[in-house]
């Protein structure tokens, strides 16, 4: 008998969601077969089998979250003996375990039932996953105080990411979660009652308010960006860039590339390349501040933020300074697509030294981004639009784009950031230098 455990599939992963069981109970498995898709904090990963055998039992149903190392299934020789031996208190039948083969995950069906009951009874577990009801649930690691406060505030521990030692959920995590719930709620209420009590709040939750289970990506984003905004003193530098030449340059470039069968290049690809070049010239911005120490990155890896329904992911283009614009364009496109499919590997989403976030396609003129730790700076790029400018005493219409650098003042001084922005602006306004 072999237990299949929740695998560790990312450097920061502490728990994972069974996204899909690719094998069902009774299926024969060969070493290397994909047994299940696991959603980590960063992506959906394929879990391969290390042994030959037959999947005899599924312990954790689709949509459920368990920590690394927790048994999620049992493999045996097909006799069923392994399953019988492997689970205390349950008789492993073959009829069970085909837990929700559909795309509807437990997590998505969980909404609407805020769980204040004991953690051992997941009220929202899909009915199909009958047998997993009997399997002892892994208690979320939480301090007694956190548990007490969670009970009091009606926070479901399984929805909270622990920030204590070893991922322990501590009081501040519960309070943050409770506060987040309150904010969500008040933003959705057109006319909040002046004196809401906790009990009316929880009543409210069942009717007008439903809880959306956090995806792992959102959990991690929430934690890391909160940390960033709390710990890194942000300052902001905004430049207006005349991109008239850049736009026409891009058109020319695309015509040529199209002729040679290459991919199209976006303005953002050019911005990314320009950033990489400017970072190479200004290594003081290509740094990290961590544990009271300043680190210099000797390579330039650019993160490019991609918005997904499940949250924000930032695929990384390594050594962007050494890649051509078309290479960047191709790689960025390919990675963004895989990110949308949840197929991006963890190492393709880590290690960036600087990020670019572009909301121009939504018509946003300008905005400020939150630094993506451990980076020291991020560039927020707005939309391009025509504006009247004064040139040599004449009114002229030019294409303008605004971009804002958010920098961690612990690592980057104002003047250093300003020089970087100056060079970046200069590159974008003289685009031939970008590909030089």
């Amino acid at each position, binding site marked *: 008998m072999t237990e299949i455990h929740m695998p560790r599939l990312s450097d920061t992963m502490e728990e994972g969601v069974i996204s899909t069981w690719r094998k069902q109970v009774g299926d024969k498995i060969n070493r290397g077969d994909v047994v299940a898709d696991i959603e980590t904090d960063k992506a959906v990963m394929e879990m391969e089998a290390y042994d030959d055998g037959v999947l005899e039992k599924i312990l954790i149903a689709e949509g459920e979250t368990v920590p690394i190392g927790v048994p999620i299934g049992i493999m045996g020789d097909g006799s069923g003996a392994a399953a019988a031996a492997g689970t205390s208190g349950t008789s492993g039948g073959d009829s069970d375990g085909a837990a929700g083969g559909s795309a509807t995950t437990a997590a998505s069906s969980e909404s609407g039932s805020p769980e204040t009951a004991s953690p051992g009874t997941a009220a929202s577990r899909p009915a199909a996953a009958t047998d997993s009801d009997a399997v002892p649930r892994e208690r979320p690691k939480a*301090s*007694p*105080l956190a548990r007490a406060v969670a009970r009091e505030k009606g926070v479901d521990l399984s929805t909270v990411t622990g920030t*204590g030692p070893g991922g322990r959920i*501590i*009081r501040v995590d519960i309070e943050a979660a409770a506060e987040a719930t309150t904010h969500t709620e008040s933003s959705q209420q057109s006319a909040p009652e002046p004196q809401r009590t906790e009990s009316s709040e929880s009543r409210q939750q069942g009717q007008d308010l439903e809880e959306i289970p956090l995806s792992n990506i959102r959990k991690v984003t929430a934690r890391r960006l909160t940390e960033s905004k709390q710990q890194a003193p942000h300052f902001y530098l905004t430049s207006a860039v005349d991109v008239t030449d850049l736009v026409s340059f891009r058109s020319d470039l695309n015509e040529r590339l199209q002729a040679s069968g290459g991919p199209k290049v976006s303005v953002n690809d050019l911005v990314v390349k320009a950033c990489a070049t400017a970072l190479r010239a200004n290594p003081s911005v290509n740094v990290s501040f961590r544990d009271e120490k300043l680190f210099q990155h000797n390579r330039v890896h650019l993160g490019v933020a991609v918005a997904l329904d499940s949250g924000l992911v930032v695929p990384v283009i390594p050594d962007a300074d050494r890649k051509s614009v078309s290479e960047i364009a191709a790689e960025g496109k390919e990675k963004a697509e895989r990110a949308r499919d949840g197929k991006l590997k963890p190492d393709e989403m880590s290690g960036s030294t600087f990020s670019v976030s572009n909301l121009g396609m939504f018509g946003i003129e300008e905005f400020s981004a939150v630094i993506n730790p451990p980076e020291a700076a991020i560039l927020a790029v707005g939309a391009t639009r025509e504006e009247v400018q004064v040139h040599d005493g004449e009114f002229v219409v030019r294409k303008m784009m605004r971009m804002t650098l958010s920098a961690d003042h612990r690592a980057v001084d104002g003047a250093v950031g300003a020089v970087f922005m100056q060079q970046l602006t200069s590159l974008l306004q003289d685009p031939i230098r970008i590909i030089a």
Partner: protein
Amino acid sequence: MAVITYRQALHDTLREEMLSDENVFLIGEEIGVFEGSYKITAGLLEEFGEKRVRDTPIAEEGFVGAAVGAAMLGLRPVVELMTINFSLLALDQIVNHAAKIYGMFGGQSNAPMVLRTPGGGGQQLGATHSQNIELYYAFVPGLKVVAPSTPADARALLKASLADNDPVLFLENLALYNTKGEVPDDMPPAEIGKAGVTRTGSDITIIGYSRMATVATQVADQLGEEGISAEVIDLRSLRPLDRETLVESVRKTGCAVIAEDDWLTYGIGAEIAASISDGAFDYLDAPVRRVAAAEVPLPYAKPLERAALPSAESLNAAVRQTLDAVGHRR
């Protein structure tokens, strides 16, 4: 109100008690002619004479037992055991006799006596002269064990111990004898069995006794300068143990660090941690942490001795780690 040393507070209180009660007498090694190994009894032989200040042969079992027997007939002996290490030679008389007289005979007799003795390491006295074995006595029903950390507490607890009708082990500490503090002149006796909250705070509870209680207040004051609010509890009484005060504090702060000069495994801190688990389980946001002596026979060489004993630095570090664990300021 006067600022005096811990030593002076003990001396003055002993003298006062001897003046006010004929039945109080001192007994121990080198307390008369030599005026005490640590000079607590200086001048008392001259003032009160040999009957009241009785030098003994080196015979801990004999003279401690004699004090118990005298106490059974109504005298109030104050025994000085030169250091707590030597109390082991009188263990039978303290544990099997003094502690049992009242209960074993159905309350017909009792042994109202005070066993004064200093513990503590840090003076390069080596393995046999540096121990903190008050736990041995705090373990025993029938005994009371008090551990003052300041001159004022020394006075108030010594008065209380002498007024008590049970055998009280009165734990002093070599490192505290020269410490100074304010001692009010008209100080009432302390209440045996009550801990003191010596600093109030809301972020973390630090619990100590004897020397480590003073270290705990130092650390709390350091942390206070950084805006960290630490509550400090000085146990004062090891038996009975004031669990209520401990638990009340931890229920407020959600985390605790225990500072003890004794060894960790089975030490005083183990009982405190268990009590916190009993009374404040649902309030704990991090495991209870203990800062205790390294588990070795204490070496002579200074760097080794220093490494083995708890200090303000080690307590400070443990407190910070615990604060990190509860996400303090995050």
